[in-house]
């Protein structure tokens, strides 16, 4: 008389260490992704790419404080500023899309599959951030002023998102 366990029984019998390890990895990757997304959003929306003693400029507004008050003008509508705006917005969009794709593929991917979509979108987001930061660095009119924290965040977000994208490439769905 043959006794055999059906397949699904094995899901309830694995050792607990590997399950928690898997969960930890998953959580870690997800948190990393969220951190990258927040960095990108802050860098895009914040208004300090270049700081001055009296004010700051960024992609969207040039604000400076006079003796009269605090004035804000719209940023110059030159080509390169618009290109940087577009690239930063695109990077945020792609990062967000890769998050959605990650959550989707988490539940729908076949066993042992790679998170291709997620990694592609994340790597594209990092490429866009890099391009935007490079264009801003090269075409900046005021070369003597200091860089603001939003600019620094953009440069920080680039390698982090690249690492995150590569992580997804290596990651494989196990269960």
């Amino acid at each position: 008389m043959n006794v055999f366990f059906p397949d699904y029984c094995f899901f309830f019998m694995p050792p607990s260490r590997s399950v928690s390890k898997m969960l930890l990895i998953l959580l870690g990757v997800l948190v990393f992704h969220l951190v990258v997304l927040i960095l990108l959003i802050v860098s895009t929306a914040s208004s300090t790419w270049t700081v001055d003693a009296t004010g700051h400029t960024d992609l969207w507004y040039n604000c400076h404080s006079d003796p009269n008050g605090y004035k804000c003008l719209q940023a110059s509508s030159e080509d390169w500023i618009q290109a940087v705006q577009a690239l930063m917005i695109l990077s945020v969009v792609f990062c967000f899309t890769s998050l959605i794709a990650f959550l989707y593929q988490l539940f729908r991917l076949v066993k042992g599959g790679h998170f291709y979509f997620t990694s592609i979108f994340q790597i594209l987001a990092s490429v866009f951030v890099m391009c935007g930061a490079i264009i801003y660095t090269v075409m900046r009119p005021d070369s003597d002023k200091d860089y603001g924290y939003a600019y620094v965040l953009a440069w920080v977000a680039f390698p982090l998102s690249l690492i995150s994208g590569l992580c997804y490439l290596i990651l494989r769905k196990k269960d």
Partner: protein
Amino acid sequence: MLRVLALAAVVLLGIAPEPSQAISIYTGWERHALVGSDIRLSCSFFSWRFVSDDVSFTWIYRPDGSRETVSIAHYAGGEAYTDNKGRFKDRVEFVGNPKRRDGSILIKNLDFSDNGTFTCDAKNPPDIVGRPSSVRLLVFENLPIQAGVITGAIIGVVLGLLVLIVVIYYLMRFLVARRVFSLSVSKHGKKKKEGSQQRQASFLLLLLILLLPLHCLPPQPPSSPSSPRLPHMHPARNNKCNRLPRCHHQTSFFFLER
């Protein structure tokens, strides 16, 4: 009595003061133009009265950074008068249609010194209370790209490419799967077709076999000339013939003859 009342009403309406609606004048807000080009500055008005014959338009120019104004065009009494002394000499033309409440002017061969504010004042007697409207003219060497055009273009192109790539990818997958499916179906289909043909042929034969005996000819007594064929008759067939209803040996002969 009624007639008197009607007359009184008409008279009163005629004397009564008109509703206090002012004339409204519309021009653009700002106009951008290239050096050396022509520009048409439009001016139109709205009035509760019909366009009278004494309708008048006046265009006044104030240069940027100055407080002095100068008239450059005037239309009154069916005649248009344009600047023939000042900086717009022979460059201004009245191109509006006053009967259609349009008092536009055309300025040719723009220069940087034409930057300024153009005010249009329209009067439609007796509707003369109104606020003149101003349009600001900006003359550029190169027309600047509006803020956000390039941004939107880049974003749109990239997202469009992305959507296109995804659609093409899924389309290829769908087509390949369909082709594989159709190939496998056709393989099965060929076998099916052959089998069905065979089946149809055998079915027809069976029909012939079964139905011919049913179309029974009038029974004929077995005649001696047919008897020599009797030895050819298979006993099984005779048995078959016996089993079938309304079967006659003669019909089986006919089958055999065939």
